[in-house]
């Protein structure tokens, strides 16, 4: 990859990805440079019959792939309104009769109403989001803007931890947190986030801060501002896109995270949504699929909403730093 400065790359990527008419004619020219000249700004279909056939074929294949991709999810939503027996009889998406009682059954299927688990997950997610925003942005400011002893090695260590498998640390972490009496509390899931352990976001923010012109820092420094003030008043306000990306990714990953929540939360009153769903599956091994799908849909809804709201930031974040 040849481009370095995150914000600029990010803008270019999205600008390209959402390219409109002029760009479209340009890409057509790329694909078939020897063919008839394009009208400036001409539409997709000012094309030879052969190109039109190719285009229709391509869209057919893409739409078919899209349907295969999305069908299981749509089917799960529809099935969550069906009686459980029908889940095993009706592969289609048409619904003759809606059975919202699956949702009531699922909601009350475990020891606590599902609202408890939604609330627990919300607490964990909020803690994780705040923790990542505070700690990662501080570390990122130091790596992007300050000169200090051992910077190169610390930065390398930070990058390596992005790729470190969690399993190498999970056993001692569990021992540590259980000695602190934190098992069956949310602390093991939240406190590490306040210690910038999600190095991926630190890296994302370092990239972003590097793209902010240093002249702005210098100007603030000449006005007598120290590092805390430059960080709070100059850098933070300018890095809101990176903070938004961090918020959305942390939200989605923490909401879906299963392994650490399974390990630290064993008592039903502190279950989060994924752990509760797992308990549901174990308890009902063969029976109420309608209710199970209903709660699965409930559990995916926040992720889906975050996707709709934050798609722009998600795609930018992936395209520029590229994880997950």
């Amino acid at each position: 990859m040849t481009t370095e400065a995150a914000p600029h790359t990010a803008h270019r990527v999205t600008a390209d990805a959402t390219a409109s008419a002029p760009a479209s004619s340009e890409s057509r020219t790329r694909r078939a440079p020897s063919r008839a000249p394009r009208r400036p700004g001409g539409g997709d279909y000012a094309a030879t019959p052969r190109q039109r056939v190719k285009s229709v074929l391509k869209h057919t294949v893409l739409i078919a792939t899209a349907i295969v991709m999305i069908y299981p999810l749509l089917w799960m939503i529809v099935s969550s309104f069906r009686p459980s027996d029908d889940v095993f009889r009706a592969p289609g998406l048409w619904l003759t009769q809606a059975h919202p009682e699956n949702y009531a059954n699922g909601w009350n299927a475990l020891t606590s109403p599902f609202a408890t688990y939604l609330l627990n997950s919300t607490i964990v997610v909020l803690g994780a989001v705040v923790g990542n925003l505070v700690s990662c942005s501080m570390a990122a400011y130091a790596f992007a803007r300050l000169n200090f002893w051992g910077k190169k090695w610390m930065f390398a260590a930070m990058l390596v931890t992005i790729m470190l498998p969690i399993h190498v640390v999970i056993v001692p972490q569990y021992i540590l947190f259980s000695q602190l009496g934190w098992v069956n509390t949310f602390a093991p899931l939240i406190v590490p986030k306040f210690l910038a352990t999600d190095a991926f976001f630190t890296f994302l923010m370092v990239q972003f801060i590097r793209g902010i012109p240093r002249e702005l820092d210098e100007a603030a420094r000449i006005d007598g501002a120290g590092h805390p003030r430059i960080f709070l008043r100059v850098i933070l306000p300018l890095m809101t896109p990176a903070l938004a990306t961090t918020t959305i990714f942390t939200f989605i990953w923490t909401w879906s995270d299963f392994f650490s929540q399974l390990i630290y939360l064993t008592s039903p009153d502190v279950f989060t949504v994924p752990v509760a769903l797992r308990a549901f599956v174990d308890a009902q091994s063969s029976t109420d699929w309608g209710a199970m799908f209903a709660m699965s849909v409930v559990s995916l809804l926040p992720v889906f909403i975050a996707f709709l709201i934050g798609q722009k930031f998600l795609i930018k974040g992936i395209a520029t730093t590229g994880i997950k």
Partner: protein
Amino acid sequence: MSALAELGTLGKKKGGRGKDAGAASGTSEPKGSRAKVSKKDNRAAFVFLAPWIVGLVCITIGPMVMSLYLSFTDYNLIQDPNFIGFDNFTRMFGDGRFWNSLGVTLTYVIVGVPLQLGLALAVAMALDKGLKGLAFYRSIFYLPSLLGSSVAVAILWKQMFGTSGLVNQLLAMVGIHGPGWISDPSTALGSIILLHVWTFGSPMIIFLAGLRQIPTMYYEAAAVDGAGRVIRFLKITLPLLSPIIFFNLVLQIIGAFQSFTQAFIVSGGTGGPSDSTMFFTLYLYQRGFGQFDMGYASAMAWVLLVIVGAFTAINFYASKFWVFYDD
């Protein structure tokens, strides 16, 4: 620039390979500004880095050292760790379930990752700049990769690939009587690999960004010289995209080695049928948090780290022969 590429340049700067010097100086501080701010900001940096340093020491390095120590002990959380030398590792060597779990995870990585990346690249190439409905397609293809690691989707998979699940219902419509995919040891792992392939959306987004960076003039020039589609793909797209393919490959392999949720939910935590979906991480979980054999689990964790490290090192080494840097 990716974390991986950055790590690569850090290493290369030391080695002093001239070719990458340009890229390296572009990412780190520009030389001019370093001269201007020549004094160190040690105190300020310490304040800003304090949370991260505490985290690195207490949450990452400390536990890593501790788990290395535990891997040479017998420890069940109740009694004090008892030093037993290499016993955990020799037990592992004779443990059939350990080898099986390693095989399952390796199969998952070696089959799943290339399939997923191949599909991601194919779809990304189909999504030309300016294609009608591009944003729509991109969203649809991307969504599953956000949901794929959730328990909810694993539950859905469990139903879909069950004996009378969605897949077999659809097959029955065309007259095929499908097997019980997840209850048959020969197809259970395949069903989970399919779930991995289904989440091709995020590498696809990275490929899309990379494809947009290839100058169109290369294709124009090649077409003028009479190069066909295949030649253009092999001689332009692949070489220029190779750093990104490499990046995706390394990260997806590291991620795939750690897969856990899908196998855990689909098999009900057992890794069954007959250990066919017993992922390495699942076996580690069973030994550590099911039987509280923390010494053995720590030893397994270090074996995992070494294997993942070896795969990454091999990848980096092999990249010298096929990854092409344009700058």
